[in-house]
């Protein structure tokens, strides 16, 4: 009998194999500059991973995503805690964050190019501004989901603010934080490419721009796959952290 994990991997791979198959068929019927063969795309993908000078571009983009997400996470957490404590601050900040949420990523790119000089600061600014509202709202929601019953029970022992945070608030908001990271990771991967495409001299976005100028579809696909691979690896890492951090949760034997 096949294990459920093996079945899961098989099912997940099947969809991707069908997609690759369709692409390969199209590559046989259409010009290679539109649909290059799958083996060529894979070969270029591996090339990037094993060529130091190219891999640096991937790592640069990864660092930018991490930097941006970390900045937005720290700032968003602080804002969420301040908003949770004060109705006045909530009334003041919520419309501003909602307004920010409505601004397209490309607009932030334009603003950053006009306002700032340094490439790295521009990218960081764009990343933080595009993911900050989502981080703030998601962490605020996690704080507000704290059980009143558990709060009163803990308060009965008269904890200090720090102890209350350590023993109750933090464990309560960890699931929300992990979800926020997972959701924002995908957004950040898309935004960083736009930011690099327009305002950077290195990274996956910059390389994609070069492939477009060279009309090199295999290269464009290979660089895109780098980003997809990166998101998959980080998602799996977050999933592993989540599985460990939330191991106390009961799991029904019957699947939902």
């Amino acid at each position, binding site marked *: 009998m096949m294990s459920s994990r093996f079945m899961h991997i098989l099912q997940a791979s099947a969809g991707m194999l069908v997609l690759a198959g369709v692409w390969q068929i199209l590559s046989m019927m259409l010009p290679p500059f539109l649909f290059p063969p799958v083996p060529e795309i894979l070969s270029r993908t591996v090339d990037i991973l094993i060529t130091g000078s190219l891999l640096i571009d991937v790592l640069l983009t990864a660092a930018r995503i991490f930097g941006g997400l970390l900045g937005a996470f720290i700032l968003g957490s602080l804002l969420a805690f301040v908003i949770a404590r004060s109705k006045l601050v909530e009334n003041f900040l919520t419309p501003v964050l909602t307004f920010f949420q409505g601004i397209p990523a490309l607009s932030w790119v334009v603003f950053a190019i006009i306002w700032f000089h340094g490439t790295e600061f521009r990218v960081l600014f764009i990343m933080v501004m595009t993911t900050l509202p989502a981080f703030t709202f998601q962490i605020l929601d996690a704080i507000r989901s704290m059980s009143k*019953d558990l709060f009163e*029970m803990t308060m*009965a022992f*008269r904890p200090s603010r720090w102890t209350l945070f350590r*023993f109750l608030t933090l*464990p309560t908001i960890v699931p929300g934080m992990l979800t926020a990271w997972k959701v924002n990771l995908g957004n950040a991967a898309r935004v960083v490419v736009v930011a690099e495409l327009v305002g950077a001299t290195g990274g996956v976005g910059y390389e994609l721009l070069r492939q477009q100028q060279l009309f090199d579809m295999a290269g464009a696909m290979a660089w895109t796959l780098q980003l997809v691979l990166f998101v998959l690896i980080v998602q799996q890492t977050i999933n592993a952290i989540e599985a460990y951090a939330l191991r*106390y949760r009961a799991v029904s034997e019957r699947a939902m």
Partner: protein
Amino acid sequence: MPELVILFNDVSKTFRRPDGRGDFVAVDKLSVEIAKGEIVAVLGKTGCGKSTMFNIIAGLIEPSSGEARVIGHDPFRDFDFFRGKIGIVFQNDRLMPWRSALDNVRLGLQILNSDPAQAEATARGWLERLGLSGHENDYPHALSGGMRQRVSIARAFAVDPEILLCDEPFSALDEMTARDLRAEFVRLVRQSNKTAVFITHQINEAMEIGDRVMVLHRPARIAYEARLSAATTDAERTKMHQDIMRVLSVEQAPA
């Protein structure tokens, strides 16, 4: 004169209605004296203000008027004075789902900055006394309702409080489990000579546990009070039960 541990002097508590249409009085000029080592069972219908009285003693809410004193201090304003002095067993177990049974029991000790090794030994000892040896590392979802409530009792006792507050702690359990836990609870309280306030809506439970039974009418004010002891005869108990039934049945519906 016995040492007074809990003193209410004309304590009232008014809440604003959630829909904003005026206020409602939950506790109305309640005066109560509870001496050290006493177990007082507080009876009353749902919504009579028992839990409000409970929360005032616990320092979780402030009276609107009157004076509340617990161990000579204002429980709301002198909040930090009561670190480790009050243990609470709630209606539901209120266990932290991310903590094992052992970690839940030592929560209070950790908050009180007890020595970690000592805290663990104390927590293990309480789990053992309450028949939960072997379940130290189980998470709450893996425990039955009765076991979870035992953990919450262990958590309250572990900090060795002077006062124990219990808000209908056995009401969600089946009668057999509740009866065992009640007996265990009374034994532990008597052994440690703690003062306990036990809120319930079951007459038999109140009479089984309390040295004194207090019946509250809505809004919380004393409608009936009686003392019990080992010398109380069956006939006196029956009469007391009937009196409590009568007092509870004459209460008017809430306004």
